[in-house]
């Protein structure tokens, strides 16, 4: 009998102190590993929590808007009855303020008083009168946003106890505002303007409608380009391409493409789409094309992984039945891979939705006050709108930046939710 055999047959003492110590050490290592994991998760969730709390704590204010309801007398002498869009609506606003505050007569004070209401009050009145010319000569109540400093005053951001020279509004203006509030004219409803207005110089009027529509168009273009192209490329590479040096090279390049910084794609879009092909600047079409360059590698990689995950037995079954290559792919492999492909596509699109740098380079950070009417109209997108607002000095834009980020996060959560739903709904077991 060799020494190795002797070592095996020798009875090992499981109850010895050294064996017990070794077991304890192993259990300790298990606990340590688990603790490290829990700590790591806590850090991740904690950081996410800080982000959300800080966004919500500044952003919540932008979801309500201080409004004031004022009576408007549409004096026929200021309005052209045949064409109500022409008229001196500024004077009508002035008249409104004079009826509300008859004691203010000094022109300088009147100008200060006028700053209470949003600058666009006259246009809002005009819009109402144009819509219903019968209002000419009557008095009606209209609810308009107060201008940003008074909005902030109402929301408690501007401190009344500060010395007058250190705030944006003086004591007299606060007095006028308080009078309106005492009359019950001030209200703070949900700020629908955030979703139905487009960008504006005035924070109280600025909204995300243009950015949302722009992002939608850009993502639509991105999807229409990258989904079919990505799937076709992935199917070719996975199912048809011979395995040789060239396909290896293509594969390496696609994987690298997924890791290229997005600003590089932006430069490419600027050089090729705008300068070479002469496509319009700031257009969602170009934005979508640039974003599709970024989602394309993601979709190709995800699709290939999904195709690979289809069990070979299904392919063999179909091939064994005499199905041709394309029948195997379209009847069996693609339908089985579809949940994975869709999930990956939606996650790729969600990434594209949040992408800022390439859109900046093709000019989608312009100041545009109306939603784009089509793919070629100048537009902004959600992340670039956030970028623009974050750059603006007015206090109201600080709130709106956070609010816009929350809206963007909301869209991302919805898209990821759809991805999870599709995966659970379509996934088949075999």
């Amino acid at each position, binding site marked *: 009998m060799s020494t190795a055999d002797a070592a095996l047959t020798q009875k090992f003492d499981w109850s010895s102190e050294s064996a017990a110590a070794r077991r304890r050490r192993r259990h300790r290592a298990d606990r340590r590993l688990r603790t490290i994991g829990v700590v790591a998760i806590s850090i991740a969730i904690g950081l996410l929590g800080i982000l959300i709390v800080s966004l919500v704590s500044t952003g919540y204010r932008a979801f309500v808007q201080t409004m004031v309801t004022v009576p408007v007398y549409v004096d026929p002498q200021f309005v052209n009855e045949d064409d109500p869009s022409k008229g001196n609506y500024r004077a009508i606003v002035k008249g409104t303020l004079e009826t509300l505050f008859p004691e203010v007569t000094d022109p300088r004070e009147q100008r200060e008083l006028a700053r209470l209401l949003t600058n666009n009050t006259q246009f809002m009145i005009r819009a109402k009168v144009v819509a219903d010319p019968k209002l000419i000569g009557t008095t009606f109540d209209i609810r308009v946003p107060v201008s940003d400093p008074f909005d902030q005053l109402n929301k408690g951001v501007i401190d009344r106890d500060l010395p007058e020279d250190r705030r944006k509004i003086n004591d007299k203006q606060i007095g006028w505002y308080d009078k309106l509030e005492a009359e019950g004219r001030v209200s703070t409803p949900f700020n629908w303007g955030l979703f139905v207005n487009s960008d504006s110089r005035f924070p109280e009027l600025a909204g995300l409608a243009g950015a949302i529509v722009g992002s939608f168009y850009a993502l639509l273009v991105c999807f229409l380009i990258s989904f079919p192209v990505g799937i076709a490329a992935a199917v070719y590479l996975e199912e048809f391409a011979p*395995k040789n040096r060239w396909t290896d090279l293509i594969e390496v390049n696609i994987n690298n493409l997924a890791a290229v910084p997005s600003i590089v794609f932006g430069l490419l879009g600027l050089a090729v789409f705008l300068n070479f092909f002469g496509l319009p600047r700031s257009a969602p079409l170009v934005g979508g094309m640039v974003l599709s360059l970024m989602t394309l590698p993601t979709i190709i990689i995800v699709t290939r992984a999904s195709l690979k995950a289809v*069990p070979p*037995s*299904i*392919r*063999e*079954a*179909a*091939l*064994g*039945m*005499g*199905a*041709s290559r394309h*029948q195997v792919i379209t*009847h*069996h492999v693609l339908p*089985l891979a579809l949940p994975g492909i869709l999930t990956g596509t939606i996650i790729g699109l969600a990434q594209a939705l949040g992408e800022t740098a390439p859109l900046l380079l093709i000019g989608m950070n312009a100041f545009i006050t109306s939603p784009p009417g089509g793919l070629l109209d100048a537009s902004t997108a959600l992340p670039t709108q956030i970028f623009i607002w974050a750059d603006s000095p007015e206090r109201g834009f600080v709130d709106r930046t956070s609010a816009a980020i929350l809206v963007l996060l909301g869209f991302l959560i919805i898209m990821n939710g759809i991805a999870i739903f599709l995966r659970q709904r379509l996934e*088949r*077991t*075999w």
Partner: protein
Amino acid sequence: MNQAANAEAPARSAETIVVDDPNMNPIRVAAKDTSVYYGQKQALFDVSIDIPERSVTSFIGPSGCGKSTFLRCINRMNDTIDGCRVEGLITLDERNIYDPSLDVVELRARVGMVFQKPNPFPKSIYDNIAYGPRIHGLATNKSELDGVVESSLRKAGLWEEVKDRLDDPGTGLSGGQQQRLCIARAVAVSPEVILMDEPCSALDPIATAKVEELIDELKENYCIIIVTHSMQQAARVSQRTAFFHLGILVEVGPTEHIFTNPKDERTHDYITGRFG
């Protein structure tokens, strides 16, 4: 001790030993000097064999002996494997199946295959059976297709068990039922040859008995070639048996002959359980 047993056994032969059977049916599939290479590695060496119609031929041999490789040559499933190369001649009804003029799609419809692991499509039972007739355009209308589905399921002995739930997924059946579904699916395109690659290795004994019974019935109409690891199964279901070893076809002949009176030393050692 081993020496003594070997002394009685027959010697190794360099050539394939073919034991002829005067009652053998006409030949349907024939291979001549077929060699298969996976890249540089040769997996099958000059296999020549005649396989008769309307009977069961079983391929036995230890793991890695090339019996599955040869089986997959017969419907050119090896085409799908990168770097696989087939040399020699394999004929189906005296026509070279590797001839460029023969469409592989047609070949696979004429040579059906049942795999080791039941692999129904993740579709309904009906669609599983109807898939082949549909892609090959074998049925012109719905009632004809219904007829094909029913007769295929009947041939596979599955009709009574599933006739009330044809719309249920095929993957919801038990393992044995799934394998019979796969056989029904292969039968649905009226093949001439059915290849079975260890069809019972994933099944329990009762399901195995049912599939074997089914194979016995199917041999009345089809040329069946079955690869099996179970020598008892080969003895039970097949009329002819071929023994493969290390990529060489060692011996082929009537099943009772192979199991009772093997001519080659290796066949003798294998069937007496000395290796494998």
